[in-house]
């Protein structure tokens, strides 16, 4: 808590603007978080900027000591950012970001990776466990392929930079690296095409909600070579190369004196980009912007608490638990994987997993798309409810914290409304076709009616293929249900235990983890219950 005044100094020195409507606070249970100030009188409209962070204040591999020690690609990646973070952190006060870095923990304790063995048992059969396994593989890959070669090849320079007080073996150990990954991955953002991933002060103070108040916005499309907003020499050069010109030829005749271009004459020495005299037009910032109108009644706040939330993305319970160490009951973006069960079914029937359906069939994965709107949800994470376009980019990812490369991400999933994904649909259909059904154009419409709560009288009129698909789905769901081996506890029963834990006191770390585990279990079970109920209703099983 006492670190906040130093942090305020850091903000001032770096031209980081934070709206006076916000208070930055700290509590042991919530960590640093952002509250709406008590002084706020008027609602905050959509698109109001609440914080502006110049890109020059962002900590990234390219803006740090590391910029000439790693290839451009690696600089943009998570591994590059983690290495930059490690070095800057070890520089202590010598780092321009020291007052920001001081506020970060040495590792994200609540992440699933750091739970005790017996604690991890609580979520053994959930998606979280699968995602954790994949995350461990990613970590090993980053450490072996990026960190270790870097430490070996740049050993002399890095040692000279950080000094002899830091024991080298400790600094380069996998444990240190894993701790750093947990901290960085939980709070980094994708900044733009030049910087890649970066740590953005202030923006990362906001906690996550599935009904978020604000979004993180930046201009993503900049020159990859130099980060320039507008046209730069690299565009002109690309055009020249495309036209096949030789750069060394002089342009035109020399009879008239060449034009003196005003902007270029300042480049005799490199113009320094930190110059205070830059006009506001040139300022390039990462912004926290109001997404949903923040309003309050005279008596109090319409929102449950005064806390202002960002969205880290439409993340499932498993992803939230592994990467960020928390869980939200009835997470609006939740989904559940049925991949393991589906693979088992394929194996039992001897169907190769990777076989594509031939050209005469209707169901190769490209052709399937046009049938599936409304039946399956979009795989692109667009903000479908608002129908807006995020500012100046078409990447769905940029209005929330970056997810690392998807690890353990199955494409065969059901969501909280019990809808099934495009790939799951494909797989189910292929399964039914291979086990004796025939493709039927009406199957789609029938299934659609089923999942829109069709009356049970429809059960008799379902065509063969539709019936097969639903029956297969039911098998998958049942097997998944049985996997938990918890005696078939219902989500409502988990809820009872969870609400008991809602304490007027602060939970211990272990209690907190238990609670999160139970929430994840409740979420997954509820998704299964919903989907099962629909299938059973459609098949006439009451």
């Amino acid at each position, binding site marked *: 808590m006492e670190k906040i005044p130093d942090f305020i100094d850091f903000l001032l020195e770096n031209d980081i603007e934070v709206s006076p409507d916000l208070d930055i606070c700290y509590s042991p249970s919530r960590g640093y978080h952002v509250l709406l100030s008590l002084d706020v009188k008027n609602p905050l409209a959509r698109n109001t900027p609440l914080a502006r962070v110049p890109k020059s204040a962002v900590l990234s591999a390219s*803006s740090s000591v590391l910029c000439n020690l790693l290839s451009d690609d690696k600089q943009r990646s998570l591994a590059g950012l983690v290495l930059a973070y490690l070095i800057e952190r070890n520089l202590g006060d010598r780092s321009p970001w020291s007052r920001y870095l001081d506020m970060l923990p040495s590792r994200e304790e609540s992440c699933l990776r750091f739970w005790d063995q017996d604690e991890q048992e609580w979520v053994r059969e959930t998606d979280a466990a699968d995602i954790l396994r994949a995350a461990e593989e990613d970590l090993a890959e980053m450490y072996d392929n990026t960190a270790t070669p870097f430490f070996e090849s740049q050993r002399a*320079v890095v040692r000279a930079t950080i000094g002899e007080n830091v024991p080298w073996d400790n600094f380069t150990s996998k444990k240190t690296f894993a701790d750093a990954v947990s901290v960085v991955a939980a709070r980094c953002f994708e900044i733009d095409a030049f910087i890649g991933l970066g740590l953005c002060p202030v923006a990362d103070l906001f906690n996550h909600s599935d009904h978020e108040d604000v979004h993180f916005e930046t201009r993503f499309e900049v020159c990859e070579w130099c980060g320039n907003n507008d046209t730069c020499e690299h565009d002109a050069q690309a055009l020249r190369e495309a036209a096949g010109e030789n750069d060394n030829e002089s342009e035109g005749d020399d009879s008239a004196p*060449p034009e003196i271009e005003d902007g270029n004459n300042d480049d005799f020495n490199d113009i*320094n980009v930190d110059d205070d005299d830059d006009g506001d037009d040139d300022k390039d910032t990462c912004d926290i912007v109001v997404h949903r109108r923040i309003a309050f009644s005279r008596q109090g706040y319409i929102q449950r608490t005064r806390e202002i939330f960002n969205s880290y993305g439409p993340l499932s319970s498993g992803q939230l638990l592994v990467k960020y160490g928390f869980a939200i009951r009835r997470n609006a973006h939740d989904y559940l994987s049925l991949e393991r069960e589906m693979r088992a079914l394929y194996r039992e029937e001897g169907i190769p997993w990777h076989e594509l359906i031939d050209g005469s069939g209707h169901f190769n994965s490209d052709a399937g798309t046009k049938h599936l709107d409304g039946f399956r949800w979009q795989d692109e994470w667009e903000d479908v409810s608002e129908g807006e376009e995020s500012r100046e980019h078409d990447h769905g990812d940029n209005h929330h914290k970056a997810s690392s490369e998807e690890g353990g991400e199955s494409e065969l999933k059901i969501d909280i409304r019990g809808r099934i994904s495009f790939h799951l649909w494909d797989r189910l259909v292929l399964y039914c076709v291979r086990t004796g059904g025939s493709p039927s154009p009406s199957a789609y419409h029938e299934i659609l009616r089923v999942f829109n709560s069709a009356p049970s009288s429809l059960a008799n009129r379902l065509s063969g293929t539709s019936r097969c698909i639903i029956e297969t789905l039911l098998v998958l769901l049942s097997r998944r249900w049985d996997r938990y081996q918890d005696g078939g506890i219902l989500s409502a029963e988990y809820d009872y235990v969870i609400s008991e834990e809602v304490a007027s006191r602060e939970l211990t770390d272990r209690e907190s983890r238990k609670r999160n585990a139970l929430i994840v279990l409740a979420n997954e079970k509820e998704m299964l219950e919903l989907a099962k109920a629909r299938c059973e209703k459609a098949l006439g099983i009451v």
Partner: protein
Amino acid sequence: MVEVPHQTPCSRIDCKNIASSLQCPTCLKLGKDSYFCGQDCFKKAWPTHKLVHKTLQPTTPYDPFPTFSYTGSLRPVYPLSPMRTLPDSIPRPDYATDGIPHSEQRLFRTTNIHINTAEEIAAIREACKLGRKVLDIAAAALTPGVTSDSIDALVHETCISIGAYPSPLNYYHFPKSVCISVNEIICHGIPDQRKLVDGDIVNIDVSIYYKGVHADLNETYYVGEKSLADTDSVRLVETTRECLDKAIELVKPGMLFREIGNVIEKHATANGCSVIRTYCGHGINKLFHCAPNIPHYAKNKTPGVAKPGMTFTIEPMLALGSWKDKTWPDNWTSATVDGRRSAQFEHMLLVTETGVEVLTARNADSPGGPVPRIS
């Protein structure tokens, strides 16, 4: 009465008379002596004689930007001498033809810093020694009454004689072969017809292109006894010199480029000077200006770390007053906004395995050098 040289013929070509003391008034203004035997002869000669005037340089000096609000007392003195040329045998950098350093722009603001090969380092060492030679020759010619243009001519001819190209020439269309910055000019002063005055402080910034690599160095010199007696000027110049020396002490593998500015600004502030922010040190090798970018002021965030084999400059500019600058309408000359004096020193450095090598170091007989402050 003007002394007519004995037996000078009339300047009219077909006239065989001895000239009287009658002189063409226009020629007189242009500094040439043309005698005619009489008014009639003069009138007859006029149609062809007047062509002579066109070939002479008009020496009437003028300010090319009379409406510009200059920040100090210094004024440009035009016309500039014609753009100098070089023999074809001298290798040129890519911008010599169209003014644009395409090879640099390709790498503009990218973060990779070049590590020179052993061959490149050998060429760079040689180029830097020659650059030092050229600077010393130019500095030795500094004396009240000479024009900066004549120093430019000297630098240009010296470069030719050693087979080097003067790097500033045509770099983004810079019109001359060396930068000469007087008093309140921070950097990039264009050599012109202004005569140096006793009391001036002058920076000569020499850069040459030799065997495919660039060298770059500068020093500020005192012109005449008055400048050596001016307390503030001496404080400014010596502090700047010391700032560069202190910065160089930091350089070794593992050094963070962003920390150089801390040392410079600390010493500058302790001596009542400000640090110019707009212009920075830079990487230099086959390219005149490339990564890294090295600001001279404190708490900058320039990225990167020094590794053996890198070559770059540190070139702090300090001022007695404000650090802010204003550029003249020639789009080059940079002056302090309050017209107070500015000084600069520059060395080109090589990072070695254990530390640094000052490639452009002074020789025992180099002109100038530190002087004690006046208390």
